[in-house]
């Protein structure tokens, strides 16, 4: 009974420590978004600005996702495991916010957080930002798991991941019919669902490329690169296939081009594109990662 009670106490203490780390994160968030200082450090009113609530809480979901990858090893001592969590948790917060800052600087290079979220309450911007937060968190989590408590490997893999994500976000303009900047200014929700589907799909594909056994960092990086290129080859097949299997009608026959444009900006088209991107990405991960070709060794 005493042992069970002791373990419960340890769990409760660690839960409190994780809360403390999230408190630390709240202040770290201010470093990257100094303009929200007043909102973040005061009580948050979700009804006042839903876009801002989504933007902020998506990051909290993200940091929770990353923290879930860190393990406590109580056998090495309670304080040492707390120290381990504090070090890796802090690292996770820094890397996560830095990744978000860099990726959002690439995607929203024409937009400003203060203008879009605080002044214009742009929900499209908030949803896209939400997707970024989740995807980057998921990828940082994957990279942290793969690094296996090695700081050097973590930094190498994180930089590598960031480069791949940076390229992948630019891929959206190739495969979507929607005009990103124009529709984002118009607060178009079709865009956010389409881009959301794309970024979540891309995140799944990239995470699956990183998720593999590794004994040598160079060979591992080569394998990740090869899998990423392979995904780029496979994904269009599924995207084209899904579009052919479920064809859509845009505008009436002989309609003016403007009518087709209006239909494309509808919420339905956003759902359609987003779903195609996610489904295509999931199927791509299956083709890239779930086929076991075997080796010659069972035979030889």
């Amino acid at each position, binding site marked *: 009974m005493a042992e069970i009670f002791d373990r419960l106490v340890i769990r409760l203490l660690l839960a409190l420590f994780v809360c403390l780390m999230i408190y630390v994160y709240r202040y770290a968030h201010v470093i990257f978004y100094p303009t929200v200082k007043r909102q973040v450090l005061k009580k948050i009113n979700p009804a006042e600005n839903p876009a801002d609530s989504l933007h902020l809480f998506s990051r909290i979901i993200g940091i929770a996702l990353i923290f879930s990858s860190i393990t406590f090893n109580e056998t090495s001592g309670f304080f040492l495991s707390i120290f381990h969590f504090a070090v890796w948790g802090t690292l996770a917060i820094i890397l996560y916010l830095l990744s978000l800052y860099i990726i959002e600087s690439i995607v929203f290079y024409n937009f400003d957080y203060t203008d879009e979220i605080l002044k214009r309450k742009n929900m499209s911007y908030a949803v896209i930002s939400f997707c970024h937060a989740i995807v980057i968190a998921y990828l940082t989590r994957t990279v942290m798991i793969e690094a296996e408590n090695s700081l050097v490997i973590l930094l190498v893999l994180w930089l590598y991941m960031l480069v791949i994500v940076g390229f992948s976000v630019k891929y959206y303009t*190739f495969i979507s019919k929607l005009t990103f900047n124009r529709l984002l200014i118009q607060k178009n929700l079709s865009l956010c669902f389409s881009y959301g589907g794309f970024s979540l799909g891309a995140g799944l594909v990239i995470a699956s490329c990183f998720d593999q056994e590794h004994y040598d960092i160079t060979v591992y990086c*080569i394998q990740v690169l*090869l899998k990423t290129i392979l995904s*780029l*080859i496979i994904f269009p097949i599924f995207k084209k296939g899904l579009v052919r299997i479920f064809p859509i009608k845009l505008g009436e026959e002989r309609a003016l081009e403007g009518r087709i444009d209006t239909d494309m900006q509808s919420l339905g088209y956003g759902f359609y594109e987003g779903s195609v991107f996610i489904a295509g990405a999931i199927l791509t991960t299956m083709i890239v990662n779930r086929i076991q*070709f075997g*080796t010659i060794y069972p035979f030889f």
Partner: protein
Amino acid sequence: MYKFFLYAMLIIIYLGLAKALSPSEIGIHYLQNERGFSKLIKGDLATVILVDTHATGFLIKTYYQKYRVISGYDTVEELIVRTSKEFAQKNLKHIGLSLYRKTDVSEEFLPLPPGSIYMGNREFGDWSKNKKGESRWIFHKAFKNFPRYLGWGTFRPTREFYQELKSKVSLNQPYFGPNGEFGPNGKVTRENFPQFFKDERMKKVEMKTLLIEYFKENF
């Protein structure tokens, strides 16, 4: 058209990078034909015995061969190579035979029973008469493991075997032994290279049997 070009480029880049960087491509040599042995085999008085052969792939097959390389005064090694389709198929009937031999002065590429390079070489053994009065090749004690390495088992070549072997070499014809002891149908080869002749590798499974086994295992 632009997208198609980009896609084609992507496939070429993938194939190129996979070929150049993939770990599965590193460390396995490619053997176009028997002439390629010259570069791979370094030791003197070496004989290369084909131990096993295997093809992987669905539409485009990759052929692998496993060799036992016996160097006269060095160690015995295993060598796995990728080969061309022609070379792999040609040598299907040469399992257990020596496909390459290298001496100080020459190279031989004719498929012959393993150990032919050492027969008649007094450094390695001598002809010895048994109780029946037959003269057989026996290795010196220093090379007592050679019959096992060569896949002879209890077989010991006679002088007649050696003479016949030499006449086949002069005619540039492969040799499988007086009673076909060597090769895929040879008794000696089948006994001493059991890996290749395992029942599960030899039998051809029908689709119906395969499906029944699948349902038994999975449901």
